[in-house]
């Protein structure tokens, strides 16, 4: 008779999720750092501007070096540390959107930096945590737009654009976490030595074609 005992506990699986998922967050953060540094170097018009903006990205880079180093050395970070680092990402991106010289709030085109960060976070954490993070990102972006006076609450075009961007940020979180849950299920099946479910899906064509009882 086949032994159906799982080869890992739930706690162990959660730790593994965090450890293996970290790499996505790390790469998402590297992309933000690269984008930020290129932008700072490209758009700076004065020495003051450059010296005021680069330190933010250098700090983020140092943090990511540390986190990536821990990951490469195989010593997993705890859940809180990863969440705090991700929260720092949101703060920094919101600061860029709100304070970037030249264009603020809704007119600032660097809101796209939210997308990989929210998506990567959603691939690592459970639904509640992911939902909270996504909501914080949306609220932070909306607040940055409202506080800079670039959005007027008259349901005009600027509100429309803000809603569109908020929906896509939410979609990043939802789709990432949806895929995360699919993968958890597949991993649990593999751990039990069960089939992936595709065979059953394909073999179930007979009942699937059965007329629905009215």
């Amino acid at each position, binding site marked *: 008779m086949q032994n159906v005992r799982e080869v890992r506990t739930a706690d162990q699986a959660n730790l593994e999720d965090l450890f293996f998922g970290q790499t996505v967050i790390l790469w998402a953060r590297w992309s933000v750092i690269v984008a930020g540094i*290129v932008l700072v170097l490209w758009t700076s018009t004065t020495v003051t501007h450059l010296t005021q903006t680069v330190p933010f990205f250098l700090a983020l880079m140092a943090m990511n070096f540390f986190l990536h180093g821990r990951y490469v050395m195989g010593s997993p970070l705890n859940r809180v540390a990863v969440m705090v680092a991700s929260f720092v990402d949101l703060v920094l991106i919101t600061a860029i959107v709100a304070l970037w010289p030249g264009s603020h709030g809704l007119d600032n085109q660097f809101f796209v930096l939210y997308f990989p960060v929210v998506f990567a976070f959603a691939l690592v954490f459970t639904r509640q945590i992911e939902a909270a993070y996504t909501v914080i990102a949306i609220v932070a972006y909306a607040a940055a737009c409202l506080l800079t006076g670039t959005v007027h609450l008259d349901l005009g075009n600027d509100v429309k654009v803000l809603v569109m961007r908020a929906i896509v940020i939410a979609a990043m979180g939802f789709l990432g976490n949806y895929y995360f849950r699919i993968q958890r299920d597949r991993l649990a099946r593999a751990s039990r*030595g069960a089939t992936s479910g595709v065979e059953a899906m394909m073999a179930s064509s007979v009942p699937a074609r059965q007329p629905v009882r009215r």
Partner: protein
Amino acid sequence: MSYGVKVGEHLVSPDGNWYWDGVAQQWVPKPIAPGVAGVAYEAPRHHAAPPRAQSGKGLSSFTGSVRSEDLVFGQTVLVWARWILIGTGLVLSFWSPSDLHMLQVQLAAIIALAFGNFYLHVQLLRGHPAIDNIVYAASVADLCVVTALVLVQGGYSSPVFIFYFAAVVGISVAFPTLLTAGYTAAVVVVYGIICLSTAPPEEFPAVFTRLLMIAAVAACGNVFARNESHRREEAARAHEELLDEPADRAAEEHANQPVAPA
């Protein structure tokens, strides 16, 4: 309203392959031999074999021979990403529309996408994921629709470019690495050309950021999918080893036993 046609004492489904068993209260495949009664049983064509997906007509035309298991699971993400694109597109189309021509193009593209996605979603719900080439073609259609909307709305200044992100997310988790790279490169090149030809030079940093973030999202999704694939392999191997342990132990104990005297 009845579901099918009533032949003799039995209600028969429209395709003629099932009849309603009133005692068991369920649909039953029709038997091979003509039996119960009526015209519907006079031609027992292929009743013994289970119904197969027809290859030439009907909703199942493009389903049946799925080649990639990852794509089956990724299809659901793609379908939901497309629904988000469709839903958001519809809402925003009706939100302070200004130009009739633009609205016509938007609605035509979105409705066409909705029909295609409805078909794919129905197939998933029926347990018949679409074959790989259909999924790949549907993703090309997504990207074409977003590109068309971007072009209609003025290229760089169009706010709908963010829908590239939703499309790329689905692609990155569902498709193999090479295809993900190909699709993403196509998006970056096409959208990059559109932006560079329609944006003023002072906006080029913003263009760069958009393109880099599209690539970053694709990379994150695909790295995660590959990691998970490796984890599943490891888990399956660990499970196999767990199953083999008792057999190995028994064989070892048997080998260590003293030889029985003749």
